[in-house]
């Protein structure tokens, strides 16, 4: 058979580019409360439609409606709001610190605070996250000391990682936060292995894997889904779709599959898609998947639909590849404002209390920053020893590293 026209090479393009008008008409958004909540032991084939919808709880008036309204008290919600506000303030201060030359690099969470903050509250104390670089809410919502985070960012003498890691690549086993690699996707499959180990040992602990929309294209993601599916590993597979992988829009990684959640369907893994800027929905969906894992029902894939309102990192300028005001047009709004409005509508919060809390959090973060800076910043003050270069490569220093350490004179 002869084709009537030559072949055509297809490269997807985002809806708009710099100079154009932001266009999210392609993002179909169901009404809050409209998506059903199946029991956790539902068969994956019975909820295939949920991989193409968006579970939402908060409506435009800030009211929580529908079957996914979580069992969270007003105090717990206020705590959640404080976590998100703390993360946002922390980001602002560290972004500024980077611009002031106090560290080499920083990555903000702006617009995505609900995802990691809500997930941490849904998770148990002994569970383990395998995070990417944009889930510091997992630490903040688990009361990890801000000073220690900052010391890591400054690579100073009090840095828990001894100056070895790029800023924001935290690690804390005690806080259920696996060491961040900095390579993309590699840890997604490790989370599955950790969960398999927990099942092998007949424990009750579960794992949470984290990945961004762009890096789902890595083979590690697909290996993780195969292993999670085959061994019914007690793991929650989190895909944070913030629309942009540096300058590459999510369509380049997603291809023709419609949604990232739908990637789970071929593996027989239940897949949910949730409004990632809705703290209540995010918490409720996380809780559902965590319960499923805990009950030995296997993995769940969750796609958090959110938007990276800031730059990818301090080395990035989004105005070069997307419309300047795109983030303002994002139809799922801002997670902090939405939870704030919900609490105000519920009579549990007010503009004054919000302002007071903002000031209080800023004071706390600044105090932490002063304390951290007393231990040094990247280019001034106390720093880790050159001796620390050679420690922890192995449990015991082998002869060749001993010789090299002698050469450097430490």
């Amino acid at each position, binding site marked *: 058979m002869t084709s009537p026209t030559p072949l055509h090479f297809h490269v997807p393009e985002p809806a708009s580019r710099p100079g154009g008008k932001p266009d999210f008409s392609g993002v179909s958004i169901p009404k809050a409360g409209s998506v059903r909540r199946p029991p956790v032991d539902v068969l994956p084939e019975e909820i295939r439609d949920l991989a193409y919808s968006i579970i939402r709880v908060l409506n435009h008036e800030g009211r929580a409606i529908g079957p996914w309204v979580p069992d969270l008290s007003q105090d717990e919600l206020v705590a959640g709001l404080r976590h998100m506000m703390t993360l946002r303030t922390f980001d602002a201060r560290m972004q500024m610190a980077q611009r002031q030359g106090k560290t080499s690099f920083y990555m903000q969470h702006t617009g995505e605070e609900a995802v990691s903050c809500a997930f941490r509250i849904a998770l148990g104390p002994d569970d383990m996250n395998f995070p990417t670089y944009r889930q510091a809410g997992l630490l903040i919502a688990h009361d990890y000391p801000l000073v220690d985070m900052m010391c890591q960012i400054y690579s100073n003498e009090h840095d828990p990682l001894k100056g070895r890691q790029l800023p924001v690549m935290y690690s804390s086993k005690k806080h259920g936060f696996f060491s961040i690699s900095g390579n993309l996707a590699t840890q997604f499959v490790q989370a599955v292995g950790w969960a398999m*180990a927990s099942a092998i040992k007949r424990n009750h602990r579960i794992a949470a894997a984290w990945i961004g929309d762009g890096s789902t294209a890595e083979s590690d993601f697909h290996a993780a889904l195969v292993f999670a599916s085959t061994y019914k590993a007690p793991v929650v597979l989190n895909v944070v779709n913030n629309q942009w992988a540096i300058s590459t829009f999510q369509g380049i990684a997603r291809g023709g599959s419609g949604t990232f959640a739908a990637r789970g369907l071929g593996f027989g893994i239940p897949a949910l898609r949730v409004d990632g800027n809705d703290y209540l929905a995010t918490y409720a969906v996380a809780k559902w998947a965590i319960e499923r894992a805990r009950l030995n029902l296997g993995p769940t894939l969750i796609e958090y639909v959110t938007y990276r309102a800031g730059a990818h990192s301090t080395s990035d300028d989004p105005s070069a590849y997307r419309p300047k005001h795109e983030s303002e047009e994002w139809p799922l709004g801002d997670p902090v404002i939405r939870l704030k409005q919900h609490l105000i509508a519920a009579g549990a919060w007010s503009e004054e209390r919000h302002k007071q809390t903002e000031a209080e959090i800023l004071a706390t973060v600044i105090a932490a920053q002063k304390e951290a800076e007393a231990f040094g910043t990247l280019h001034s003050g106390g720093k880790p020893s050159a001796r620390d270069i050679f420690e922890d490569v192995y449990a015991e220093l082998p002869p060749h590293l001993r010789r090299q350490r002698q050469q450097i004179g430490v």
Partner: protein
Amino acid sequence: MPSYRRICVGSASRSEFDAMPRMTMIEAIRSALDVSMARNDDVVVYGEDVGFFGGVFRCTQGLQQKYGVSRCFDAPISECGIVGTAIGMAAYGLRPCVELQFADYMYPAYDQIVSEAARLRYRSAGDFTCPLVIRMPTGGGIFGGQTHSQSPEALFTHVAGLKTVVPSNPYDAKGLLIAAIEDPDPVIFLEPKRLYNGPFDGHHDRPVTAWAKHELSEVPEGHYTTPLGKAVTRRAGEAVTILAYGTMVHVALAAVEETGVDAEVIDLRTLLPLDLETIAASVAKTGRCIVLHEATLTSGFGAELTALVQEHCFYHLEAPVMRVTGWDTPYPHAQEWDYFPGPSRLGQALRDIVETR
């Protein structure tokens, strides 16, 4: 059959040796896994075809039946997934010992090995560790062509944070594998597949010999370790030092016997950490050194050995250090024996180096 100097390292008692069973390398590896799994519930074994069937080389035969499917199981054909999940298990606190079916298949796992397993302790300042063993059959000599014959050891020794082990006989294979499983850091365990069923001196046209006739096939049934980072002198000599590991140890001994050159043959056993002390003492004594490996020449582990000998023994050297290795080509199929650095190539090098004044 060349004569081997008996060097017992480890904790096996004399009485155990008196009634010791004979094992092939496969049986010795299986015994190491068995002993380790029996001693420690945290040891888990998996890989492609490893569970019910017991592995394509049979190294894990019977382990699933003995320890159950949660301790020994089949994995999907995904080296990235096998090693990636094993890293997660090791971080959890297990002692995974996974098999990659051939070293040639390890490339999809390389990112996990290099960027993750090797660096986890370092980047987390000891908060998380990775006590993991990755076993893989290596080397040629079985007409495996370019995808079943490679010797990628230099790709591991080049990576900070890994240990790399290559046994040359059943006794060491068991002791080194148990030591690797008990080691707190990730260990790459390369098993020369041509040695699985018998010692091989490179004379492919001669009848195959069985391990049963070899001294180092006497393997204690119980637990013992052969320490990582310790080389062993297989043959003492005065004229030249041959540095070898894996299959090449047997090639070296054959070439020495055939040429009559009084060479000292050192079996490195562990490439990293390397037993530089034993190497340097030998070369200081002989003044000559040949580095022998099956892997390609350029940037091979022999380059590192050559540089170290030069750095540490320069004033003892009476001839340039020579390298006898595989050619810088993919491993060919039909021309396998033209590629393989066998006893005649080494023999020529031995004659050349002792004549160098």
